[in-house]
């Protein structure tokens, strides 16, 4: 018995304790705060029930921020996934050249969001590289990538896609290489064309890669923050590129409305948990157990 306790305290307790105190407790705290009117500078905090949630749902800016988040997340879940698979198929050879090319695509994955933003800022500035190229090519009214409210959100989504593409490529490559060659050989013997082989063998067999990539992209897209902070600070105009994570930090950490931001954070948590659960469920059903 004593030994069991000692083992527990040695093995499990430290991790569980830290997780409990610095993750679980804060989650509960955030949810609870959402039911108060806590303001950074107010002397007292009162319980206000669902009032913060109500105000959130009535606030146009909240829906705008939510829409932005969904747009970015949708783009980030689909584009690097699809392009990543295509690239993995293209780069699926084992020579030195292809290993180098894979490293090239993977490099942005290991850069920080801040550095990626710095890189793209110099490309997308009005007098930056991209517009310089366009102007040389004869384009007269070069788009204002980061300051046109209609384009800025897509620019940020594109930058995120660029950063995450390499991850998908590598995961898909691993998945592709795990497919037994015999299956392909048998299919060729049966006269199946490339497309047929892809649809019947490749696609089902890389299901677990699809799951990993999709979930990873979903979580990354949903929590986007640094890129927005550096490139547009939530603008141009009112909140046109602000994501829900950005708004929570703006209001709750850099601003004063702690209760309001906590309610928003609670909604954010609810959405990502729900989305992840649904996506995971849908995708894992497809996975084939070898």
């Amino acid at each position, binding site marked *: 018995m004593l030994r069991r306790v000692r083992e527990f305290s040695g093995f499990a307790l430290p991790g569980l304790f830290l997780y409990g105190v610095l993750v679980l407790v804060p989650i509960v705290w955030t949810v609870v705060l959402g039911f108060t009117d806590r303001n950074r500078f107010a002397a007292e905090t009162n319980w206000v029930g669902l009032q913060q949630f109500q105000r959130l749902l009535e606030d146009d800016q909240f829906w705008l921020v939510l829409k932005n988040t969904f747009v970015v997340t949708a783009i980030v879940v689909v584009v690097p996934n699809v392009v990543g698979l295509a690239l993995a198929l293209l780069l699926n050879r084992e020579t030195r050249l292809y290993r180098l090319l894979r490293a090239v695509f993977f490099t942005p994955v290991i850069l920080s969001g801040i550095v990626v933003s710095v890189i793209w800022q110099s490309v997308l500035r009005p007098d930056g590289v991209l517009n310089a190229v366009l102007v040389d090519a004869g384009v007269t009214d070069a788009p204002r990538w980061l300051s046109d409210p209609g384009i800025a959100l897509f620019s940020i989504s594109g930058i995120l896609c660029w950063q995450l593409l390499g991850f998908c490529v590598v995961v898909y490559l691993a998945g592709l290489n795990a497919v037994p060659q015999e299956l392909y050989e048998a299919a060729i013997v049966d006269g199946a064309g490339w497309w047929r082989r892809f649809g019947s063998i490749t696609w089902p067999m890389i299901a677990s890669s699809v799951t990993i990539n999709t979930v990873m992209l979903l979580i990354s897209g949903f929590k986007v923050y640094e890129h927005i902070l550096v490139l547009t*600070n939530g603008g141009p105009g*009112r909140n046109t590129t602000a994501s829900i994570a950005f708004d929570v930090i703006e209001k*709750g950490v850099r601003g004063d409305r702690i209760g309001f931001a906590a309610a928003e954070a609670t909604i954010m948590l609810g959405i990502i948990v729900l989305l992840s659960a649904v996506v995971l469920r849908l995708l894992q059903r497809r996975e084939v157990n070898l």
Partner: protein
Amino acid sequence: MAPRWRGAVAAATLLTVALAGCTSGGKSDSSSAGGPVELTMLTFETPNLPASLWDSAIARVSQKVPGVTIKKLVTPNVDRTTYAKQLASSGQLPDIMMAVNPQGFAEGGQLADFSQDELKDFASPESGAINGKIYQLPTNAQPQSLLYYNKADFAKAGITAAPKTWTDFLAVCAKLKAAGITPIAVGGGGQDTFASMYTWVGTVGTDVYLTDPKFSQEIADGSKTFADPQFVKAADKVAQLAKLGYLDKQGTSRSYADHEKAFRAGSAAMYPMGSWFASSADNDKPKFDVGVFAWPSDDGKAVVPNLTGGGLSVSAKAENVDLAKKFALEWTKDKETSDAFTKADGTFNTIAGYQPPADMGPLFKETLALYNQAVKDGTVTPALSIEQGDNGLPADLTVPIQQIAVELLNGKSDAQAVVSKLDKEYAGLK
């Protein structure tokens, strides 16, 4: 094999823990009896205000205040008020802060207030008061938006005199446009959303604050909303400028530094900006001569939107509040520091008897003359979103206003849409 490798890991962990212990920060316990008190001071660095400027000022003033060592903290970007809030939220409010909007902090009891006696040398000791008390030393008067212009461009368009009324101003813009010159430069891109405000600050100064200096208080007590016709008119003026194509479309993509760079490279004829630009232009002359005039109201008054404040605040929770206050006051009174900041940032120090250095550049002198004239004529007004304290707007409204300003400049929102957005944002703060 396993035990050996395990030992290496354990050793590495111990070593790094030890190192971490040595260098981990946290408020050091310097208040051992008799030792100097360590106070943290929050500063911000801009191209005008580099680290060397702050360091030398801190060193100089520290000598005047025995018993204090200053630990300098730097805001990661220019928005020091937001950063101070972020620090406050984790219980790390610095002891001394430069040019941080005291609103919110003051009402929450986080700042120490200065007594009338401590303020006796200041020319406007009531500026920026919150609930009647002063939480930020009203050190500097600094015009927040004036129309700096490229004299060569004006000459090219055949403009002989600075516009006196708003109609004249529109005529000047039309002439410039006809000559193929973009009339007005605007900013607000990247992280520097604040740079979007300066045109709007001007029109709100002429159309709202000039006749109704208490407008912000009326918003606060509910007797007026942003939908007030005068405010709508001011917003509409900016919308009209955008519609007529007088604003530089590329402007809202530019960071603050790029904004100034672009004007210097001739992107537009006029550059609405605060008086800190005068110092920048004097210290590093552009290729063209720069003139300046104030914002013309409909009836020909020359309006100077201004902020008197921008000084130091002291945390109420500082280890030694009196010493911190003493440091703050000495900083403000130190002629060399004041001279350095005046030279760097074009501020007009309001300590009684202070005279700016004689070798200030011509544009600074012109700006100062404009300001003094406006003081005489009573045409100094608060600056929208910049004015603090009882006569300003809530600090949490600052970034929303700046972002909404970008919509005005882009032509994305018209005046009606803008004021209703503002009213909604304001209501959301209650």
